[in-house]
């Protein structure tokens, strides 16, 4: 298998290395983009690989991550939470403390630098919870780029705080009224914009999905999460965790924290999908748990689809996980047995949310609450000798209204 990219950034499992030169993770990934975008995707791949090998680009990105985004983010041990989770030790990787309040800033700063390198002046993005939209609007303000964010109309209602933040930052937010009015439809609309605007516009995809090179590139920009956490944990505890836990919608924070641990075969990698209201079709967004192979948004991956390949509606309490697909590398990690995935229901996620708030004084995003609920399960499975690392991918300010309503706090 041929490889591209920075050799240190390939995912190695045994003697396999992904993705290949055309973006395949096993049979997943690749590029199913309209021909109009092929030239731009090829240019992006070329420029990205050149940037990876360019010490100046790397130094500029490292400076931004340190001085602007606030990296490295902390790891925080949460003993009172751990007491509820089987009595072992639990550490949170604090992406909620990164600038803009989630891990999304890591990827966006990289892509904004690339946008400038390609001489483009306009950036478009899709967003579900609004965290990627806010991060993109932030980077565009910083770099003086025009910014348009597509967001499903339903999501603009349930994540209204982030809509205001994006507009304050100078971005245009376009509510998308087609289809289910959530993240998938926002992505459709962003692709429609890009096909017509690709000459001067970069599409800053926020997750490890889409056509090649996005799944590889976004992973590489996010893998700093796991690289830092691995070093921090070894320094503080002196050993690797038994399991690394993260929520998975498209899967960028999960790939980000998993990637550095992939060669550590003794470390379980556990992704927590949106189980919504249960396993019935249309009531969840648990793609790996309930989906099947297919092609959407430029990639071959797992999808929630009906028996004729039509995308199913999805549901999750968390807008950021409410997506019928998943990044292709996650499918590959599962098929090779390196990672496993479980569905966490809305109710379990709310429980994870509440436990962290009350035991540790940290308000997590509803997306990250799925990982916390997974940690409560896993901690109990591992018992008092367990050591867990959980990616706290974002903070919960944006979810205050949703949670208040669900838990009757108003």
């Amino acid at each position, binding site marked *: 298998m041929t490889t591209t990219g920075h050799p240190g950034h390939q995912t190695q499992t045994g003697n396999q290395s992904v993705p290949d030169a055309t973006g395949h993770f096993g049979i997943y990934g690749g*590029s*199913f983009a*309209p*021909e*109009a975008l092929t030239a731009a995707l090829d240019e992006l791949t070329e420029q990205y690989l050149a940037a990876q090998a360019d010490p100046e680009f790397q130094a500029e990105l490292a400076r931004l991550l340190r001085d602007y985004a606030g990296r490295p983010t902390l790891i925080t041990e949460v003993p009172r939470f751990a007491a509820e989770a089987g009595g072992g030790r639990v550490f949170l990787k604090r992406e909620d403390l990164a600038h803009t309040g989630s891990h999304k800033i890591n990827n966006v700063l990289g892509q904004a630098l690339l946008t400038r390198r390609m001489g483009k002046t306009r950036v478009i993005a899709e967003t579900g919870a609004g965290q990627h939209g806010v991060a993109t609007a932030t980077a565009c303000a910083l770099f003086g780029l025009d910014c348009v964010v597509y967001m499903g109309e339903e999501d603009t209602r349930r994540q209204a705080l982030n809509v205001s933040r994006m507009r304050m930052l100078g971005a245009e937010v376009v509510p998308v009224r087609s289809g289910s009015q959530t993240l998938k439809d926002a992505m459709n609309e962003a692709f*429609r914009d890009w096909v*017509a605007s*690709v000459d001067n516009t970069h599409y800053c995809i926020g997750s490890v999905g889409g056509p090649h090179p996005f799944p590889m590139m976004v992973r590489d920009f996010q893998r700093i999460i796991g690289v830092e956490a691995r070093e921090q944990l070894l320094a503080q505890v002196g050993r690797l965790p038994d399991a690394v836990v993260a929520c998975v919608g498209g899967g960028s924070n999960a790939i980000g924290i998993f990637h550095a641990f992939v060669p550590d075969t003794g470390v379980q990698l556990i992704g927590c999908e949106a189980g919504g209201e249960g396993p019935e079709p249309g009531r969840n967004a648990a793609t790996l748990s309930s989906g099947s192979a*297919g092609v959407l948004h430029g990639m071959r991956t797992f999808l929630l689809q009906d028996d004729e*390949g039509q995308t199913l509606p999805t549901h999750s309490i968390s807008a950021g996980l409410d997506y019928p697909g998943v990044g292709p590398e996650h499918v590959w990690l599962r098929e090779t047995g390196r990672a496993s995935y479980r569905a966490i229901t809305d109710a379990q996620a709310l429980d994870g949310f509440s436990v962290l708030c009350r035991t540790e004084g940290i308000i997590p995003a509803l997306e990250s609450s799925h990982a916390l609920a997974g940690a409560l399960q896993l901690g109990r499975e591992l018992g008092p000798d367990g050591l867990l690392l959980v990616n706290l991918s974002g903070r919960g300010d944006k979810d205050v209204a949703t949670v208040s309503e669900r838990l009757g706090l108003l």
Partner: protein
Amino acid sequence: MTTPATPATPATPGTPAAPLSPVAQAFEKAASEQRAAVVGYLPAGFPSVDGAITAAVAMAESGVDVLEIGLPYSDPLIDGPVIQEAVHAALTNGTHVGDVLRTVEAATAAGVPTLVMTYWNPIDHYGVAAFARDLAAAGGAGLITPDLPPEEAGPWIEASDRYGLDRVFLVAPSSTRERIQTVTAVCRGFVYAASLMGITGTRATVSDQAAGLVSKVRDYTRLPVAVGLGVRDGAQAAQVAGFADGVIVGTAFVQRLLNAPSPDEGIAAVRALAADLAAGARAGSQAAHASPAAPSPAASPAAAANPAAAAGS
């Protein structure tokens, strides 16, 4: 339905000895009559399965040379609002793949070679070989695949060879020469040249990128080249016919059906548009033959003078 003929050896595109497909024959016939072929698109299931069949047959009877039947899909990534609305209605009405094949069968029976235009996932999910088999059995001529690059098309290339189906891939104004070579090498039937960078929908004027793209494509293939995206009337069809072998029109037909106060008026409007396009495709082509040096022999003063008239897409 008849059992599809399976060629003993795969047909090789571009080989002079290979028999012409029905679509290629339709282009050849149009060329022999000194006119561009008119390729018309409609999604199956809109306004209903039978309504779409009636409209497709009306198009076939009114001057359309090749039909594209759209397979309705939940995520039409490169379609504008008009086709999105029609496809959404088709899916809401409960249109299934079987209905698409039935529409193909009826359109073919009306005497016009019929391709299916489809996003890739429904075919992938059905099974590429099974779909090719069932499409051939329904009399279908092949597929137009806007989100399937040749690099990912291995199973479809194999299945289309096996069942003697055309495979139409797209080139775009942004395509490099190398890409055009790659794409045209696997095309069969015709090459679909997207006239502009954008989604489906009518435009006030024909993109000035289209003629240059067609000319580049001709450096790499002897297949007919048809131009789509943005064409809405006979005047624009005439412009395109000045440099291309075919004119592809979709949104304008769908718009006629969407706007019609009654089904019968919709069919009448579709017939009128097909006739207008056919007349334009003839006039533009003959003007180009009469004065091959003229770059834009049938420029549309109406369209050029009134750019604000761009239909709502």
